[in-house]
């Protein structure tokens, strides 16, 4: 399915993502990595570690509601993957991102901004395997 090319909205949204990352560093001195935040909330070592992460997660979850309140429409979200693929993909994402210590936000946004050597290796790696996976699913297996 075709999706519209949205350079301005995407760049503007990206700037807000960056602002969120900068705010977390300013306020709490932490990297905004969604994997670390989620796993840190699940396996929190103390009440404070859990509370700030849950507050952050709650704020993220409120965002579509804010968009709806302002524009009258929820953000577009089209899922083609079957429930089985969502589960398989999700488990692999959780396993891989925690093994590799980061995902798109942690390595991609925060790590690259810090010029982290690990992130400079991680980002091309997951971009490449994602592209290969999409190619195989769509063009080889014809999903």
């Amino acid at each position: 399915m075709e999706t519209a090319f949205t350079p301005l909205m995407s760049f503007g949204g990206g700037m807000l993502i960056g602002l969120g990352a900068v705010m977390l560093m300013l306020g709490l001195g932490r990297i905004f990595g969604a994997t670390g935040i989620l796993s840190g909330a699940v396996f929190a070592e103390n009440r404070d570690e859990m509370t700030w992460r849950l507050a952050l997660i709650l704020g993220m979850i409120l965002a579509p509601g804010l968009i709806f309140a302002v524009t009258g429409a929820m953000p577009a979200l089209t899922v083609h993957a079957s429930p089985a693929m969502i589960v398989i993909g999700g488990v692999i994402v959780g396993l891989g991102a925690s093994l590799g210590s980061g995902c798109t936000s942690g390595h991609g946004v925060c790590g690259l901004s810090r010029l982290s050597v690990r992130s400079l290796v991680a980002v091309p790696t997951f971009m490449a395997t994602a592209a290969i996976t999409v190619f195989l699913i769509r063009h080889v297996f014809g999903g």
Partner: protein
Amino acid sequence: MKYLFALLTGLVFGTGIAISGMMDPAKVLNFFDIAGTWDLSLMFVMGGALVVTFIGYRLVWRRTQPLFEQRFQVPTSPLIDSRLIGGSALFGIGWGIAGFCPGAAIPALGTGRWEVALFLISVTGGFFIRRWVSPTPKQATT
């Protein structure tokens, strides 16, 4: 105050995810589908985020400490090992299968779609598998 700041930070990040198109798996997967219905938009998401974060981090680091904590906690390991490469490779495969990554799925939960909840439950399951197959001492994750 610290927790309110965290909530506001999450709201800003999540709004960015929603506006940018990152929340939509159809758009994300099209970014990777160079041979098919290619949509370059996500390159602009990354560009916008990197410009702000690259400059913003350097301004913030002029301070001696964050607003609500004693110190900045930034990972410093330079270690390039099989965990980093293998884990990242796996992450990309999962991202390509489902079309969601954690940073996009958490805000997407606010749309109330069951697919997103199913994905995030599965991601959490993946965290448990990781602790089971590869237990490690506590380290800073990004």
